[in-house]
């Protein structure tokens, strides 16, 4: 019987030739990412162990991205704890470089790796054929100290992509449509694997946007076949694959979906669930107070280009705040070079330093009671971006920017 990509990566990390969905395997991790959301808790627990040690410090990557620059004495203290610990132990450490997943994609992730991240959107790494999965700080601590963890081998849902997205339709619309189709727990405990000839026209930015959001369907990980596009990205960033895995032709999938990319339309996810999707036109006219272009999901140079093309020569609507937040320092510098930040600034947007920003409802751009936000962030849960009685709509960079100009939810002209 054939194996899926997920089964092959776990078998490899377990030092075995094979494993199957439902097995529980002890695995050795290739990399361990943690950010300022919970690292202070990990450090407290670590310091409470007797004679603690780090199994392999070269595998650890710590990134301050959620509350940077620090916005209160509490976060400053938590950052200091993380910074001091990282320096003392020689942990690879980033501060102010960008949102953790973007920094990982630009600098660390390799095809075939098994990566734990103390952040739910770690499944983004599948865009480069790596098995990334989110864990809490206790699981992280265990892996940091022992180098290992246990994993239930997931079943895989396979998505065969066909055709090509229409002009004005983006990867963001595609993944929101898929989550709407299978629901917010449609892939709970499972891997979501993407393959098919439709993949070849999707950039790495598109692929990250797709894989990153799979946790919103409950997925344990997301995986994409490694092709020339992925290999070119790796080469450009000076890395080689660890190993390239591909599902066998006779691999067993729990479900198979064929998705025609040509049929995808611009989508909005309405409050307060990511699977609560409707075509943009059904929300047309909904008044907004704030718009956000950024996050690990949609803050890459490709997304900023889309937004800048929509807003060039136009102005942000009166009474609307428009926050533009490049996902990393390199994205920021590239946007600067291409004149995109000029375009946003001229239009009246606020351009912020790379960080998680509005997406997670702390640090900056928090919305007040009764306010409405349209966002390229990852979640629209009740209270996610601020007051418990506020409203978050999720959409593509194009729809978010067009809405910032109009002052209400609307599609971008294509």
């Amino acid at each position, binding site marked *: 019987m054939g194996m899926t990509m997920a089964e092959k990566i776990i078998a490899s990390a377990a030092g075995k030739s094979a494993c199957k969905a439902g097995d529980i395997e002890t695995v050795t991790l290739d990399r361990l990412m943690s950010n300022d*959301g*919970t690292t202070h*808790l990990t450090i407290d*627990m670590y310091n*409470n*162990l*007797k004679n603690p040690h780090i199994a392999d410090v070269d595998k650890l990557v710590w990134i301050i991205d959620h*509350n940077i620059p620090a916005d*209160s004495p*509490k*976060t400053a203290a*938590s950052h200091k704890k993380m910074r001091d610990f990282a320096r003392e132990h020689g942990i690879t450490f980033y501060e102010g470089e960008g949102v953790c997943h973007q920094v990982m994609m630009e600098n660390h992730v390799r095809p075939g790796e098994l990566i734990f991240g*103390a*952040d*739910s959107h770690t499944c983004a790494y599948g865009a480069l054929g790596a098995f990334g999965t*989110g*864990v*809490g*700080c*206790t*699981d992280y*601590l*265990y892996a940091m100290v022992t180098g290992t963890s246990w994993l239930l081998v997931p079943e895989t849902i396979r998505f065969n992509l066909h055709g090509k997205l229409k002009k004005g339709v983006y990867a963001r619309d595609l993944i929101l449509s898929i989550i709407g189709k299978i629901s*917010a*727990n449609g892939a*709970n*405990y499972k891997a979501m694997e993407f393959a098919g000839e439709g993949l070849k026209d999707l950039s790495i930015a598109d692929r990250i946007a797709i894989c990153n959001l799979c*946790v919103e369907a*409950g997925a*344990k990980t997301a995986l994409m076949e490694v092709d020339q596009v992925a290999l070119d990205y790796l080469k450009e960033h000076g890395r080689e694959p660890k190993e390239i895995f591909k599902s066998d032709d006779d691999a067993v999938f729990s479900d198979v979906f064929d998705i025609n990319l040509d049929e995808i339309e611009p989508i909005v996810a309405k409050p307060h*669930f990511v699977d609560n999707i409707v075509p943009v036109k059904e929300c047309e006219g909904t008044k907004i107070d704030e718009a956000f272009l950024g996050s690990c999901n949609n803050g890459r140079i490709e997304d900023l280009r889309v937004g800048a093309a929509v807003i060039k020569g136009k102005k942000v609507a009166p009474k609307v705040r428009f926050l533009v937040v490049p996902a990393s320092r390199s994205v920021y510098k590239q946007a600067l070079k291409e004149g995109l930040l000029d375009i946003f600034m001229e239009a009246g947007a606020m351009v912020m330093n790379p960080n998680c920003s509005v997406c*997670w*409802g*702390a640090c900056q751009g928090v919305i007040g009671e009764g306010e409405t936000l349209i966002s390229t962030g990852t*979640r629209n*849960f*009740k*209270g*996610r971006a601020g007051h*418990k009685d506020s409203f978050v709509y999720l959409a593509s960079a194009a729809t978010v920017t067009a809405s910032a100009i109009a002052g209400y939810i609307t599609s971008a002209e294509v």
Partner: protein
Amino acid sequence: MSKIWKLDNDIDTDIILPTEYLAFETVEQMKPYAFSPLRPELAGKIQPGDMIVAGNNFGCGSSREQAPEVVKALGISCIVAKSFARIFFRNAINNGLLLIEQPDLYDEVNEGDEAEVIPGKEIKVNGKSYPIASLPENLTEILEAGGLVKAMRKRNGLD
């Protein structure tokens, strides 16, 4: 007997503990804000030993471990749901919070009902018995110790 607090489907981690309270230094400080976006009064009403009954996908969203920690700190003895999101499931076990998947209970009980939970066997409510699966031995060990770190300390003879 445990008093039931009933919550809906898709109770996410931002409901369980909103972002603005994550930076608090202790879980005691976080307690009053648990579930506050949905039911601000709830945290103040929960008594030690009470239980939560919910629908599908309890704990979806972020990997913030403060979520199961705060539920445990409120004294909730267990959460019975139709299903749990996977990161929350691991985090809860790692913090010594018992989770039980049961498909029928949610549709047949009301908030305020009293239930008796016999781990690995059944839940009794309103004269009816609902079967539950037993947990694997290693997870039972973690739960009984009060979490993964405590279990490891115990196993290594440190506590």
